[in-house]
């Protein structure tokens, strides 16, 4: 207690004794002025939080509370407030042990109850909320849980059948079994069909024999494999009587209950990483490992005891696609968690910008608050608008996923690929901008913003490389176009119905009123998507007419494909914003969301593609930019309320977001 008093003493003395009546005239020393006392909320931040969190708000608060109240989550006092965040100064080994202890604690408190043993919308939404909350605390915690629950658990759920579910799911939920997911190899990542691990069937013993035939076939980056996992799902080629039946998934035990590595398995560490050091990523080699026949996850294909290959899906392409199901849900989780990192970074950067001053406009005048600089508003406020847009899109994606039907699989695949790539890229951009906006303080690990860049960079390549995912989006749009054209039918699905209407026209002079009209905004986004799709189809067709294969044609047209993928994402995200706004009654909440929606639309329309392809005249391009700066200054008074509504509790932000002077005082050294 005395220590705390010492800490407060110097500054308290200073503030209490030396403040003359007018605070602005005292330039002798800066004092921290809490933004809560100078900024007003023009709308209800709780309502806004409920809207953008979208679901399970009480569950989220419970989980935040579980972490905040436990010593295991490394609470530290800075500037009189408690913050929880892992000690990233620990060695990787220590960090891994802490991640595991945190999982054990959460398990004991019932945080994962019914996560694997129950099905349905309610539990799936709860699980989404849980993962989002854990991602806010630490990406290692999120990833370690993710490897166990949605990769290992998901593989058993989606690829296994009843006896697998009965045998493995309950024990996995209770962590009696610790699972991991061995798909990626040193030589093959995104191209899963090329993995080199080979499994054959030995009908004399009735089990499979698995091998790592060469160094490039070693399993790589397997989260949980280096220290803790007892079992893994292995993706391997299946050879039956000399015929390769393609990639299949097998359950393989890699450690016994005491943690000893099983015979014929070799495991090595992946080493220190730029982030995620709390996850024990490992490499695995298999040397004639015997796998019981029933460990083949057989929802798609099976092998009879006498060694006959049986599959309900004849087409190997479709068979392979079915094996990829667990990755789809992984993409949903990743996309959603990326949005929350942007929220953390923006809340810190904007709160800091509301308390940090730099430069006076005239001598002897007080220095100007960072967020009162138009340029600083221009850097941060559009990113907040983007984050709101991503929140609505993430909620849409989750609903699309939990209400999935066999018919919606294709849509889920395209939308989750598009959003995963777009959100994780956006997140990295937002983290970098926020880091710079925090200046040198952004470099301190305890302030989180800079550190998150290393932790979340991986999201742009795991569960599908972003560039490859976006190419798939363009191909899917191409496919939708060809299907409509071939059958001479209207476009249906993926939000492409606008293609059936006449092409929208952009007015020759864009006024402020037009620019803020949602109809115009939607037209502008649809126009770009439509034109790029037409161009893409035309270019691909031209390549094919010149004798190239469809695959080659796609490769040649990659620039258009990238622009098209982006156009699709921007439009699809915008659509979810419009839909969320429409659910609200008239009032302050709807008003501020309308302004944010306009800002989001305009930063999409500001994109270079609008000038590159001539959708906007140079003059109109200038009008768009002018309107953006206007909206930024209009939103400036709402800045604090906008980031408070992100619902990230104070202990999960960082000292820089609060009394950073006190947090750095000599007495706190």
């Amino acid at each position, binding site marked *: 207690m005395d220590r705390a008093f010492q800490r407060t003493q110097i500054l308290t003395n200073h503030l209490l004794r030396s*403040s003359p009546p007018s605070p602005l005239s005292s330039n002798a020393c800066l004092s921290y002025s809490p933004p809560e006392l100078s900024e007003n909320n023009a709308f209800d931040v709780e309502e806004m939080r409920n809207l953008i969190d979208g679901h399970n708000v009480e569950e989220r608060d419970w989980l935040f509370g579980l972490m905040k109240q436990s010593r295991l989550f490394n609470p530290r006092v800075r500037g009189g407030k408690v913050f929880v965040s892992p000690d990233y100064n620990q060695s990787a080994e220590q960090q891994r042990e802490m991640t595991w202890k945190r999982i054990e604690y959460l398990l004991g408190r019932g945080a994962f109850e019914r996560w694997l043993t129950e099905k349905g919308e309610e539990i799936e939404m709860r699980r989404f909320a849980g993962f989002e909350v854990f991602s806010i605390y630490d990406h290692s915690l999120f990833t370690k849980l993710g490897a166990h629950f949605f990769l290992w658990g998901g593989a058993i759920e989606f690829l296994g059948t009843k006896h697998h579910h009965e045998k493995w799911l309950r024990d996995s939920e209770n962590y009696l079994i610790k699972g991991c997911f061995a798909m990626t190899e040193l030589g093959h990542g995104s191209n899963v069909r090329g993995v080199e691990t080979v499994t054959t069937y030995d009908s004399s013993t009735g089990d499979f024999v698995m091998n790592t035939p060469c160094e490039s076939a070693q399993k790589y980056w397997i989260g949980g494999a280096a220290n803790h996992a007892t079992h893994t799902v292995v993706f391997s080629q299946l050879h039956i009587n000399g015929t390769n039946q393609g990639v299949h998934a097998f359950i393989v035990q890699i450690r016994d209950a005491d943690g000893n590595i099983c015979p014929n398995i070799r495991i090595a560490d992946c080493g220190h990483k730029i982030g995620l050091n709390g996850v024990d990523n490992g490499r695995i080699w298999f040397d004639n490992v015997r796998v019981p026949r029933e460990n083949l996850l057989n929802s798609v294909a099976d092998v009879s005891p006498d060694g006959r290959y049986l599959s309900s899906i004849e087409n190997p392409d479709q068979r392979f696609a079915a094996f990829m199901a667990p990755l789809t849900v992984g993409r949903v989780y990743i996309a959603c968690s990326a949005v929350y990192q942007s929220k953390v970074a923006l809340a810190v950067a904007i709160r800091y910008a509301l308390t940090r001053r730099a430069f006076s406009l005239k001598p002897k005048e007080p220095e100007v608050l960072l967020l009162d600089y138009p340029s600083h508003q221009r850097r941060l406020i559009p990113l907040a608008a983007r984050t709101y847009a991503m929140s609505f899109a993430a909620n849409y994606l989750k609903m699309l996923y939990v209400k999935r039907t066999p018919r919606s699989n294709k849509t889920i695949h395209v939308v989750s690929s598009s959003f995963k790539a777009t959100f994780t890229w956006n997140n990295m951009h937002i983290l970098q901008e926020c880091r710079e906006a925090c200046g040198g303080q952004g470099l301190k690990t305890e302030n989180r913003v800079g550190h998150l860049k290393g932790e979340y960079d991986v999201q742009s390549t795991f569960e599908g490389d972003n560039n490859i995912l976006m190419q798939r989006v363009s191909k899917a749009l191409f496919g939708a176009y060809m299907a409509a054209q071939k059958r001479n039918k209207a476009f249906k699905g993926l939000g492409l119905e606008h293609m059936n209407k006449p092409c929208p026209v952009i007015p020759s002079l864009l006024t402020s009123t037009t620019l803020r009209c949602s109809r115009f905004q939607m037209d502008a986004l649809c126009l770009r998507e439509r034109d790029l799709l037409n161009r893409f189809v035309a270019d691909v067709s031209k390549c094919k007419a010149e004798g190239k294969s469809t695959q080659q044609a796609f490769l040649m047209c990659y620039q258009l494909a990238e622009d098209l993928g982006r156009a699709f994402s921007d439009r699809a995200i915008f659509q979810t914003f419009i839909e969320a706004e429409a659910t609200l009654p008239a009032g302050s909440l709807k008003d501020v969301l309308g302004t944010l929606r306009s800002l989001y639309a305009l930063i999409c329309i500001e994109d270079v593609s609008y000038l590159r392809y001539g959708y906007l005249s140079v003059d109109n391009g200038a009008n768009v930019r002018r309107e953006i700066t206007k909206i930024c200054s209009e939103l400036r008074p709402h800045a604090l309320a906008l980031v408070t509504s992100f619902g990230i509790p104070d202990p999960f932000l960082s000292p820089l977001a609060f009394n950073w002077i006190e947090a750095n005082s000599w007495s706190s050294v």
Partner: protein
Amino acid sequence: MASSQHEQVLVEEKSFARILTFNRTKQLNALSFQMISRLLELFLAYEDDPNVKLIILKGKGRSFCAGGDVAAVVHDIRAGGWRAGANFFMKEFTLNYLMATYSKPQVSILNGIVMGGGNGASMHGRFRVATENSLFAMPETALGLFPDVGASYFLSRLPGFFGEYLGLTGARLDGVEMFACGLATHFVPSAKLPMLEAALCAVDSSDPAIISSIIGQYSERPSLKEQSVYNRLDVIDRCFSQKTVEEILSALEREAVDRREGWISTTIQTLKKASPTSLKISLRSIRVGRLQGVGPCLVREYRMVCHVMRGEFSKDFFEGCRAILLDKDKNPKWEPSKLELVADSTVDSYFSKVKNEDWEDLKLPARPKFNLPPYVIAKL
């Protein structure tokens, strides 16, 4: 300048200190509307007075303050509608906020009963001095209310899930336990209080470090009784961290089988006697409050208390007051009568704005932007 012996708050001016004494001993110093208004007036005046550096709060008789005068509130509501009750709480919560964000240290001498509103008038201040006579409780759930006066802020910040335990069960703590868990900042034997008071009256500083070291000179570090519940924090954490009240109860029942400790069955009995609606809204309030600043906590609690006074979703508050304070049959008939009959949507309703045309959220009083001490800034 001594005030009249008939006044409910006695004021003494000692150099740079002001001693405010609750003087309503018959009612165990329960806070009346008049007392709250007077305190608010005094605190506001002292904040701008450079001759005031320290405020000491204490109670006459064997109680510091036994709570808000709930019986009077119920009487007022019967006479003048729920608004009369809402006005009482609006004033009280405004005082709580002012105390929590006060630029000068408040020392509360808790030499006796400190319950409900009495905690609101002390826990938000910088220093809380417990003695061997202290008796703490937040007993609202037995009354059909919920821990208010900013309790969702200060209970939720106690170690582990002790705050949930205190808030849901209304369990009583002695002075040593208050000090151990952090509700009290110091423990001073009551025999030393006159000396402490004299020493504090000689202070000419608002520096919390100086005041702390003065109190420290009279403080002791007593040890907990062996059977103190605070020694069972591991069990409390396991049970009271559960997601719902129902799960908390079943966790306690499991522990009861394993341990056969008296306090566990007492705890279960207490929870079963409390208003089910109160338990559910209290738990939610503490959980949300853990993640909020003191201002938003009080704004939310004001919403909640207005719903309670309106009696739209449950009339348990009036039933509780009847059974405990008026008829004293100690046999309230709660409605809904069981936890499982309280719908989640009903609980949600307590946290929403009151749908009444001229109703407004609690307006927090303006605070100085530039010279609040860091320990105050950290609470916002």
